[in-house]
């Protein structure tokens, strides 16, 4: 089937089998390998991206559900020279070890900060419930999200 979607500002017209998942389009068709696959039951959040401004688990959407969508992946939010405040906070707070969960965590954390004006430790922990990290024990991830939440979001537009 034909789908058209915008990923990180670039428009793509693709012809893919109907059972293609969004994460497969992102990784295999577009070569954006920053989005990861950590499970096959939509439980781990490694594949989290933004679709029309909301986080989605890209392993749980089929091609037919994404026509016309605006997608942002980890590659679309910042560069090494100009990191998104959440990316910078993850590094600053040592919120990653192997890095495999990290892109999904960052994408979810960005939305969490945008959605929740008064974030505290508990709210961050509950907000990240859909993303599994096996390395960090979450302590520093929570710290990074709270750290980024303190940075005025206007400091850098997404």
């Amino acid at each position, binding site marked *: 089937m034909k789908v058209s979607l915008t990923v990180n500002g670039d428009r793509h017209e693709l012809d893919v089998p109907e059972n293609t998942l969004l994460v497969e389009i992102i990784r295999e068709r577009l070569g954006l390998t920053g989005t990861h696959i950590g499970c096959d039951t939509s439980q781990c959040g490694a594949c989290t991206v933004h679709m029309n401004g909301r986080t989605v688990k890209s392993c749980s959407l089929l091609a037919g559900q994404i026509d016309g969508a605006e997608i942002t992946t980890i590659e679309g939010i910042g560069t090494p020279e100009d990191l998104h405040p959440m990316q910078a906070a993850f*590094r600053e707070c040592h919120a990653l070890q192997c890095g495999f969960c990290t892109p999904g965590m960052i994408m979810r954390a960005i939305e969490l900060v945008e959605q929740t004006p008064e974030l505290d430790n508990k709210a961050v922990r509950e907000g990240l419930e859909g993303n599994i990290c096996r390395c960090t024990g979450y302590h520093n991830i929570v710290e990074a999200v709270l750290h980024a939440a303190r940075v005025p979001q206007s400091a850098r537009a997404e």
Partner: protein
Amino acid sequence: MNEAKSATGIGASVKRKEDVRFITGSGCYTDDINQPGQSHAAFLRSPYARARIESIDASAALEIEGVIAVLTGADMVADGLGDIPCGWLVKQKDGSDMVSAPHPPMAATQTNYVGEPYGVVIADTLAAARLGMEAVLTDFTELDAIVDLATVRDSEQIHEGVEGNLAFDWELGEREATEAALASAAHVTRLDLTNNRLIPNAMEPRAALGIFDKVSGEHTLYTTSQNPHLARLVLSAFVQIAPEHKLRIVAPDVGGGFGSKIFIYAEETAVIWAARKVGRPVKWTADRSESFLADAHGRDHITHAELGTDEEGRFVALKVQTTANLGAYLSTFGSAVPTYLYGTLMAGQYSTPNIYVEVQGVYTNTAPVDAYRGAGRPEATYVVERIVETAARELGRDPVELRRLNMIKPDQFPYETPVALVYDTGNYEASLAKALVHADYAGFAERRAAAAAEGKRRGIGLACYIEACGLAPSNLAIQLGAQVGLYESGEIRVNPTGSVTVFTGSHSHGQGHETTFAQVVSDKLGIPFEDVEVVHGDTGRVEFGLGTYGSRSLAVGGSALIRAAEKLITKGRRIAAHMLEAEVDAVEFIDGDFLVKDSNQSLSFAEIAFAAYVPANYPEDLEPGFSEKAFYDPENFTYPAGTHIAEVEVDVDTGVVELKQFVAVDDFGNVINPMIVTGQVHGGVAQGAGQALLEQAIYDEFGQLVTGSYMDYCMPRADDVPDFTVDTTVTPCTHNPLGVKGCGEAGAIGSPAAIMNAVTDAVGDNSISMPATSEKVWRALR
């Protein structure tokens, strides 16, 4: 220079070099790599725990568009491929060798656990490979599954020649003396424990991409490995995939290992073999369901322990009897984990004079069991610290005071235990004291009362653990059954302009070696941190290595780099002496400069490097070039130790256990990067909390894995754990040049015992087993 050095040198919390690529999505994991013309593999896996393969009909699969080949375990046998060996040969009580059942890379005649691969479909696309997999008709004769540890010894024999399904009956320590001491003890505490089976669950599933170059005959395998050189050695020498010099193994960015990526597995083996057979690159990435079924699992012990005490409460004897589930085959270190990495730790931090441990390792129709973060040492700590706590309760003693009474004192080092280890150094009371302050142990009674007023039960628990890291030395390990050495290699290549490239046989899959090792080398050589590049994980670039496990990287791999750096300095001094017309003995190396004593003459490290490559004014009897390597073989294990304190609150109505506070005070010796060390402890503690409260792999009576996805296997999530309080005390390791001990596993070693001591304290029922789920706790409260 000095300032920059102190901000990035040993002891500084330098931000990690590797982070930028990971936070921007530019990491390069195995599944991110693709090759032109690559095909895809889908594995045929046994639906039964134990079955005879009668026939495989691939004809319908081969009709499917895109399917290239269906290869089976029998094809591997026909190609002369060898079995996957176990890397540690354990001797039994009677001196005989353990009974190692053949472990074919893919099953050829019989499958022995659900998910065991017995064939592989190769196709143009993954979708076609999966369709092909569905279309293969395999005729199995199902046999009875042997899964219950309690009855396994009397069950049907799984492997030919393995009587009673017993791989080994192993012992350590003095049986008679221990039993005699128990018989005359004033009090004996008896405890039955289960150490729950776990699934490691690194977030990156295993993956492999095999490439065969017809012209050069070279095989390249990109794979998720913690130790690519060991994989190459085994695949070459034992499985006989290809000669070692024609086999290159690359472990690029690896998304966590925790032990599970040490081992040599069927799938990686099959992928590189198939690539040559079909003449195209072959790629395979596990989906999570496959990881659950076919990654090596961890733990899975049942244990009976007895601790004898005298009138004052001094430990007089400890006897431990364990049945360890090894799974269907002996995985790479499957035999070492419940023996030499377990029984040797039974002294813990205490001067118990008599200790005896016996372990029966048994085969079952379940996935192989092998090292998982801590590997044997969490199991040992669980036995020691649960029974010590239980003894304190039975004797009506304060658990802190009872531990303190029995601890090995700082002036007793080096301390030889009754179970074969010599602890070089430590100060156990110091970490205990610090942990008690952090945990406000003195204020616990008040917190307990406050919780009770709200209808909740609060409990506190300690674990004073010890571990042994950096398995060593090689000759001793080999005497005890290791089939490889346990040294590590390190090479420092200095470029003519003075920057350096460091090659290490250790592998980083989250530990941050690119940062820590750069700190070590820049500090030692007095050069800017930015000028050091660390290369690891590629047998084509790094000479040799034994990889990363057992918290050995810094203690062994880091020490190798220090030795290589020392060789560079020695050579540099000769060059400097020549250039500055001084005696070699008069040249000192301080903070990156070669200085002539009592003069103002000096040359920088970079100037010496340049001279070594452009040898205009150069010693005649010295080779040009500025590059050195070293193999470091440690004299002894290192012995990190510490105290962990957990505090929990139990909801009486629901049985839900909330981990309110967790304090870890660890002695890792010297610390290179405190930020990274703290992160390692956090991660380990969360895994330990997962074991204590949430995780358990369950097979049903037919050997079907009931907990085969994240829907059923409960991983710790952000809201399952609190913030942790982490601190350190320091007694430097006495026998390696960095004075470091290793920090990768401690969190997972101390925490299960501490948390279960807290849970059983809160509930008032010592029989609750891991994981302490709300259901178990709720029942115990009724």
